[in-house]
């Protein structure tokens, strides 16, 4: 009987056979294109055909000032967007974690920006940012902060900030929900013990809540860094990378080169840079997960 049971869980062939369809799909649609992108980056591929050109795409790309500017801009954009998401998300989670009336409704109401197709949310933001008729410009004009119509997406700096705010809007709900879930997971007796010892609310937050949810905060920072880095639709719909390149991040630049100009080779070289950076992020993330898992299993 034991023998039979053992065979129930250790049929390696069956296990692989069940995974095979999904694995094959991923190989065909994700893994192979990744390798093909690397190959294309060494060619001058376009709609007309392709020839091997060695490192030419990379040399041109890395020696161009414009590209270096794009990389720097991508990281600045990411830094502000991720920090804001984490800060606002943490504050939001603390507020919604308070045991007050209506909190279960608020918890549902946080989520729409996360669920709704990003592209549709951005159509709304386009209207909000409208320089003449939008509500933000309107409030600005009525309060005297603006002395006339102001196209938020028409100037370099304001477009940069506006796209960050829209990105924060999309990303904050998820961060909030994950922080909230983590806060709910903190054992109650920790708080009760601290309360009996006379710890203030403030103390309890900084000495219990914050340390307890640190693993989730770190995981979410990395995950949102990755998603923010990949963010395409928000910038594309609001500014298409403009005005004059002010919101062109690596992803936008890759897209423009490859599918705006059909310079597949050049686009692929940029995509390879994106891949390398993403691999680094993913490596960090997975190493971190492995460490957290180890710690949990030790405890």
């Amino acid at each position, binding site marked *: 009987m034991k023998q039979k049971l053992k065979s129930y869980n250790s049929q390696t062939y069956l296990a692989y056979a069940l995974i095979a369809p999904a694995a094959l799909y991923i190989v065909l649609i994700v893994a192979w294109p990744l390798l093909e992108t690397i190959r294309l980056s060494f060619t001058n591929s376009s709609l007309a055909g392709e020839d091997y050109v060695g490192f030419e795409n990379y040399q041109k790309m890395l020696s161009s000032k414009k590209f270096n500017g794009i990389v720097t801009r991508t990281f600045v954009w990411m830094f502000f967007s991720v920090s804001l998401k984490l800060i606002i998300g943490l504050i939001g989670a603390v507020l919604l974690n308070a045991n007050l009336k209506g909190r279960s409704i608020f918890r549902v109401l946080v989520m729409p*920006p996360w669920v709704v197709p990003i592209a549709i949310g951005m159509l*709304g933001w386009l209207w909000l940012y409208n320089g003449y008729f939008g509500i933000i*410009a309107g409030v600005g004009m009525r309060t005297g902060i603006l002395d006339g119509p102001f196209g938020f997406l028409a100037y370099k700096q304001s477009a940069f900030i506006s796209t960050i705010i829209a990105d924060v809007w999309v990303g904050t709900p998820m961060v909030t929900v994950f922080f909230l879930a983590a806060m709910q997971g903190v054992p109650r007796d920790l708080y009760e013990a601290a309360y009996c010892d006379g710890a203030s609310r403030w103390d309890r937050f900084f000495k219990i809540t914050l340390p307890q949810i640190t693993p989730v905060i770190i995981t979410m920072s990395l995950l949102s860094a990755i998603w923010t880095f990949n963010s395409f639709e928000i910038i594309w719909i609001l500014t298409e990378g403009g005005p004059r390149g002010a919101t062109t991040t690596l992803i936008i630049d890759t897209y423009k080169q490859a599918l705006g100009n059909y310079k597949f080779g050049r686009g692929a070289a940029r*995509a390879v840079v994106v891949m390398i950076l993403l691999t680094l992020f993913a490596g960090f993330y997975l190493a971190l997960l492995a460490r957290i898992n180890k710690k949990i299993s030790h405890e």
Partner: protein
Amino acid sequence: MNKYNTLEKILIYSGILVFMTFILLPFVEMFYASLRPLDHLFRSPYQFYSDDLSFWAYREMWNTVPMLGRYIFNSFFLATSVAVITLIFVIPAAYSYARFKFPAKNTSLYVLLAINMFSGAVLLIPLYKVLRTFGLLNSYQAMIVPGVAFLIPTAIWLLKSYFEKIPIDLEEAAFVDGASRVQILRHIIAPLSTPGLVVVGIYAFIGAYAQQFLFAITFNQKKEYMPIPSGLYEFIGYQSVKWNEMMAASLVGIAPVLLVFIFLQKYIVEGLTAGAVKN
């Protein structure tokens, strides 16, 4: 535990008010704009008050965006197809991960997580060339095929954790009693995993609904296959955008997903966060 005093309550509620305003303002303003006549919208500076609010834009939008009905159908059709195909690939794989021990199991699970981090944008060039070679550009498949690939990893992780919750003893007992694997699948696993399958299916549906932009604008130029986001995006480029109708059409386009989500949010959020918080 101590209760909040009045001052604390006021502070927390005002904090929530500010936070919620940030999150919901775009939706509220979209809805408000959809109710207002166009000449009220086109006043500068912004008018906060309109007296003749109506649902006129919701009728007129079908003329302004002649293929709106088709776009809505496409969005549903694409999201449903992607969700169903994803489930077909994911169910056996997730079951295998939940039940069997085999070499490279953990490594491959982490590879799946890593795939999740690559955006479609990196793969667009080869995908474009492949779809062009097979004559699949400008078709539903052009959006379905890549869409499924990016939902498979998370769906496997989610469903695996559901399968793991089904006690293995049940299956083992049946197996020892001589039940075949197919019988076990039909009589034990299928009924017990239905809630999990529903959640993962909805996750895939919402995910597929949300991702209908990048692949749609890149791989499909034909209006008759466009989902709502790319269909409406075309109209934004025009000189004079009829914002009230555009907002009305957007809201109609997202209402179904929003409703599905609101009714089922408890399960979806539990499933998603359990995976990330505990793993």
